[in-house]
């Protein structure tokens, strides 16, 4: 890995953000709207639901964590799409940068993009709704790592689709996370799902992450085994995502789509 090349590619995306105030605003706007929406829903539920009555902010914390996953994945997709939209794709793929360095650069830069959007929203939630994700304590770091890895995995799968099917796959990029959201048990316990879907849901890291989040906030208990399980599952999916990306890249070279990838 050549870190100066990873930095160069990261810098390309940071310049893109810094050059455009509307772009920064766009990054901050949606997470903030989400926080407001879920903040009020959360407030209503805590006043009217027995399940949530003792724990203010479970739903809002879930919304923030889910948004973190969503932003990570979208950031990864967006940076890849930017290369297609700007017709810079060929320049990038003929530069002396390894494919794993491209993946590393997008992965590392996606966190910056994600945090630019999410940090203001998280800070707003503290005075406005009295909810802080920091209440999750040290486990928060591990939950975020697991979520981030899974978000990047989804990004890798979508970009693999873009390499395979071209820009027409773009719509899938936006819809990708919504496919899995119902199985992620973000706002409800896994028992709500039918038994058959519970088996599938358990194969995803999301269930373990959000179950653990609720356990910490509602029962004040941390099960590090569950957290480790979610990270392990995320690592497995991430590795598969990387493999699928490489397969798509070599497939695109065979089909010749890298040379005329554009809008």
């Amino acid at each position: 890995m050549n870190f100066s090349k990873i930095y160069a590619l990261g810098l390309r995306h940071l310049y893109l953000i810094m050059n455009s105030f509307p772009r920064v605003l766009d990054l901050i706007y949606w997470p903030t709207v989400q926080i407001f929406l879920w903040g009020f829903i959360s407030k209503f539920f805590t006043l009217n639901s027995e399940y949530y009555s003792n724990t203010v902010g479970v739903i809002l914390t879930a919304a923030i964590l889910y948004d973190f996953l969503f932003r990570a994945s979208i950031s990864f997709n967006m940076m890849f799409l930017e290369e297609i939209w700007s017709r810079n794709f060929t320049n990038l793929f003929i530069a002396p940068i390894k494919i794993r360095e491209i993946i590393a650069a997008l992965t590392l830069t996606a966190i910056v993009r994600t945090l630019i959007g999410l940090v203001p929203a998280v800070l707003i939630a503290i005075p406005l709704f009295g909810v802080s994700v920091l209440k999750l304590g040290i486990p928060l770091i591990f939950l975020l790592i697991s979520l981030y890895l899974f978000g990047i995995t989804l990004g890798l799968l979508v970009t693999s689709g873009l390499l395979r099917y071209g820009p027409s796959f773009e719509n899938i990029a936006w819809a990708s996370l919504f496919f899995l959201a119902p199985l992620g048990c973000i706002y409800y316990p896994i028992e709500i799902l039918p038994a058959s879907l519970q088996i599938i849901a358990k194969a995803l890291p999301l269930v373990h992450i959000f179950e653990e989040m609720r356990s910490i906030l509602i029962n004040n208990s941390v099960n590090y085994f569950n957290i480790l399980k979610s990270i392990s599952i995320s690592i497995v999916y991430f590795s598969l995502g990387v493999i699928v990306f490489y397969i798509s890249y070599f497939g695109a070279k065979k089909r010749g789509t890298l040379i005329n990838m554009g809008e």
Partner: protein
Amino acid sequence: MFIEIKKLTKLYNDYLAVNEIDFQIDKNKTVGLLGPNGCGKTTTIGMMLGLVTPTGGEILIESKNINSFKRDEILKRFNFASPYIELPKKLTVKQNLEIYGRLYGIQSLENRIDEISSDLDIKSFFKRKTGELSSGQKNRVSLAKSLINKPEILLLDEPTASLDPDIGDFIRSYIHEYKEKNKVTILLASHNMNEVERLCDSIIMMRKGKIVDKGTCAELIKKHGRNNLEETFLKLARSNDEF
């Protein structure tokens, strides 16, 4: 021989884009790749750049198969410019050159950017976003990017397409001057016969994925009994014969 292309073939499903072509390029020479649209020029360039996997044949650089080099090792010896690909539009000219300079691992990057931008007269719009430039300005910036690493092998795909005669002449003069001063091997795909005559030491004519003839401009004009390269091109492009 510096570059050797042997039996290079590309088959897309049942479409034969490039059909067992053979050619060589000597070090520091400029070779023109000519042919009608869809004859396989871009696919050939794509295979040389590692963007397209050949179905058959091989590409040798200094007698070594291109696949035996590490991707980043071989690509830092190459560069490419085409009006059909662009640099990120929302980045300034300087930012784009900085990014690509870093990706190509250029030492003393500021000096190199300064040098190349003076040569190509792009300093006056250094701080403007690349997407806001005219096509002539974009073209010069694209050429600056393609020369940022002082490539040993430069692939140019219609470098003056859609430019006005003045800018087109500027680019041609610059490439001519650059190749005289620097050690660079150029493969130039173009439909501009004046450009090819001015810049190329020899030419390769392609049609329907095959090389139909090659030689110097003068040799081909004489061989086909025509007055100039354009007439020769038309004869070769329209004929079904092989020469």
